[in-house]
């Protein structure tokens, strides 16, 4: 108590002094001063809620549908234009994919990741992270631009790096048929960029492990469940990765739901000890959330059947964006356009440099008072 009053006294005193100081030394005064306790709010910031996962990759089901729909629409119209530009009338017979079909395809490739991980013996962390990356990628891009098979391979490779289980590209590519290292690496930057370079992911399987441990510490009697229960719950979590649960709910909630599917009583008992006393009764309750997750897992957690996917894949081959396929007219046109822009930029830079140097190629005698022009950086192709 004493400390705090001292601090308050200090801070107001300090404010006064800072004001005076400002006259003498603006630097000192404008610094954010002592120890950050100036902030009035004593509302604590929970760690998970400060993570990029919570802040940037969390949506409602409606929002998810909306995003996918608008991405799809925009893609279709853009590609249609490309078709028309290359060859008028060519787009009339093309049957473009819709958002649901895109999702179907993505789901299929999501289901292939565990198989690959088993082949390479990657740990669970890698598998879960790769799946998350793949799903997030297609909240920013369309399958008609980038085929999920290639993105999947790249996402997995990237996941091995971000989770500290790196593997050399040669070792990776050599174990995947018909894949060259460049196929994987070419897309890496694109994937990272689409993820917003937000690589840290919190996973439900770790939360499950946590619940499992905590059950042993249950007040009164530790709750002991057989390992088979754990494995079953983990199975549900793996199924949940095929769904959108990770975008709607928190990992802890998903884990609780998974456990609830296997051992509902234990789950409820545990949850009751964690719920805070002052929850608003009108707000969404934990148990209702758990129920929603459970139904999501059970309904949408199925691997798409091969037949329907085959059909979609076939149509994709026709409607995919020619701009992204090396060799097509549209692709070459796009490259030419990019080259032109780059050339323009370069020419502008050369002009600037020449102006800076003056007429004499060897430069005039260096005068200390001559103002130096702004730095021209050839490396810098951002501007």
């Amino acid at each position, binding site marked *: 108590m004493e*400390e705090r009053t001292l601090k308050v006294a*200090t801070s107001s*005193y*300090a404010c006064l*002094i800072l004001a005076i100081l400002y006259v003498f030394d603006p630097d000192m005064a404008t610094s954010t001063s002592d*120890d*950050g*306790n100036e*902030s009035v*709010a*004593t*509302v*604590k*910031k*929970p*760690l*998970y*809620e*400060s993570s990029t996962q*919570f*802040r*940037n*990759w*969390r*949506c*409602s089901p*409606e*929002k998810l549908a*909306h*995003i996918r729909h608008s991405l799809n629409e925009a893609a279709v119209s853009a590609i249609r234009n490309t078709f028309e530009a290359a060859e008028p009338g060519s787009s009339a017979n093309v049957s473009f994919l819709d958002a649901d079909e895109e999702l179907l395809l993505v789901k299929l490739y999501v289901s292939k990741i565990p198989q690959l991980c088993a082949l390479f013996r990657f740990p669970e962390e890698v598998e879960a992270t790769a799946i998350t990356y793949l799903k997030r990628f297609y*909240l920013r891009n369309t399958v008609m631009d980038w085929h999920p098979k290639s993105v999947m391979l790249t996402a997995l490779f990237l996941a091995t790096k971000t989770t500290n289980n790196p593997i050399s590209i040669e070792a990776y590519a050599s174990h995947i048929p018909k894949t060259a290292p460049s196929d994987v690496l070419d897309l890496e930057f694109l994937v990272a960029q689409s993820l*917003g370079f937000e690589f840290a992911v*919190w*996973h439900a399987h*770790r*939360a*499950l*492990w*946590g*619940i499992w*441990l*905590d059950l*042993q*510490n249950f007040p009164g009697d530790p709750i002991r469940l057989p*390992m088979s229960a754990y494995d079953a719950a983990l199975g549900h979590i793996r199924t949940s990765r095929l769904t959108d649960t990770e975008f709607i*709910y*928190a*990992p*802890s*909630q998903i*884990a609780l739901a998974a456990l609830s599917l296997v051992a509902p009583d234990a789950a409820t008992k545990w*949850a009751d000890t*964690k*719920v*805070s006393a002052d*929850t608003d009764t009108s*707000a*969404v309750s934990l148990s209702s*959330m758990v129920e929603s997750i459970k139904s999501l897992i059970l309904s949408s957690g199925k691997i798409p059947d091969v037949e329907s996917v085959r059909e979609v894949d076939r149509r994709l081959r026709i409607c995919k964006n020619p701009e992204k396929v090396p060799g097509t007219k549209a692709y070459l046109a796009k490259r030419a356009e990019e080259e032109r822009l780059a050339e323009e930029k370069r020419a502008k830079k050369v002009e600037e440099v020449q102006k800076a140097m003056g007429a004499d190629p060897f430069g005039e*005698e260096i005068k200390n008072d001559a103002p130096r022009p702004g730095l021209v950086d050839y490396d810098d192709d951002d501007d």
Partner: protein
Amino acid sequence: MTQSLNKHCRSKHAQSSMAPRSTVSGWLQGKTIRKAGATANTRSSTPNQVQSTSATIFAGGVKDASGRTSEYFSMDDQCPVCKSDRYLNPKLRLLVSSCYHKMCESCIDRLFTLGPAPCPICSKVLRKLAFSPQTFEDLGVEKEVAIRRRIAKEFNKRREDFLDLLSYNDYLEEVEDITFNLINEIDVAQTEARIVAHRAENAALIEMNLQREEAYAHALKEHEETEKREREFRALELRREEEEEREEREKGKREIIDKLETSDKDANKLVAKTRANALKRSAARFASASHLQSSAQLLRSRAAQSTVIPDIPHVPLQDDYYAYEDKFRTKESGYEDVFSEAVRQDREGIMRGGGYMVEEAWGRALMCAVAALEVPPLVGLEPILSSEQTTAVHAPA
């Protein structure tokens, strides 16, 4: 030339404030560090230092900025004369002649101990002392460096010695020309003549410049010496003051205890008063102590600052993050846990010796299990995704 090198050597040695940690003994009062070059293959018993087998001490070698020379060696070294290499003879040391040919110490001993003899590679007559250790990997560089050093001694005019930039540039060009000739052995005789001519013409100026440089080096050394002395003195002062401060504190503590025993005033007030006194005393001491001007100034300004921006007591954690500490407790006795079986069974004690703490992994899982457990999901189209959202990378404070 060796003489002036020695002088530089000695003066540099005296200047170095931090003793170099090289373990090799010095010769001619310079410190030699053996520097290893690119190695192709090494045996485990390979020495990483070059040792000398000859009785003669070889001078020379190029010094770097701190006054030490480093000697170049590589595992692929081989004496061109006797063909021994470091594998067969670990103590192999190759030296360079004045005609820039390499050979090992034993060959040199063998060939030149009895007096001047022709170089086995180019037949130029050499004396034993004409050999020096190699500093650079490339002999061409070694030669060039030696030549440039020599030229620098003679041609040391500065920009101020010329009327205009053009003539200075001409001078520089001529010097470079001469250097180039000497390095590549073009028109050597003629070039040497030019050097002599230049020396004759500008003897006075050269001399003056030399002296000026020496004076500069001398002034610098003196300056550093005085600074060093000042610093040591200041450190001594500081230590003394800290001693005093500690004693004061002890005394203060004793005072408090005494006062608390004897008086019946409020304990808190007493403590506060004694503390205030102690602070005043130390501030006064700061203001009055230290004879050295700079130190006194510093401390005075610090004390003054304390009354403006006070030092506040330590607050261990100053952020307002919440790590769900109230939602879980790590079990003291540990968990039965399939995943940490390997840790538990760590028979050799390797994981334990390395310090792996499975509790940290457990803590992470537990935190994950309770994080945001009650946070409801978003509904509707309201909140927007990162691409459209504010460009803030981090959560707003």
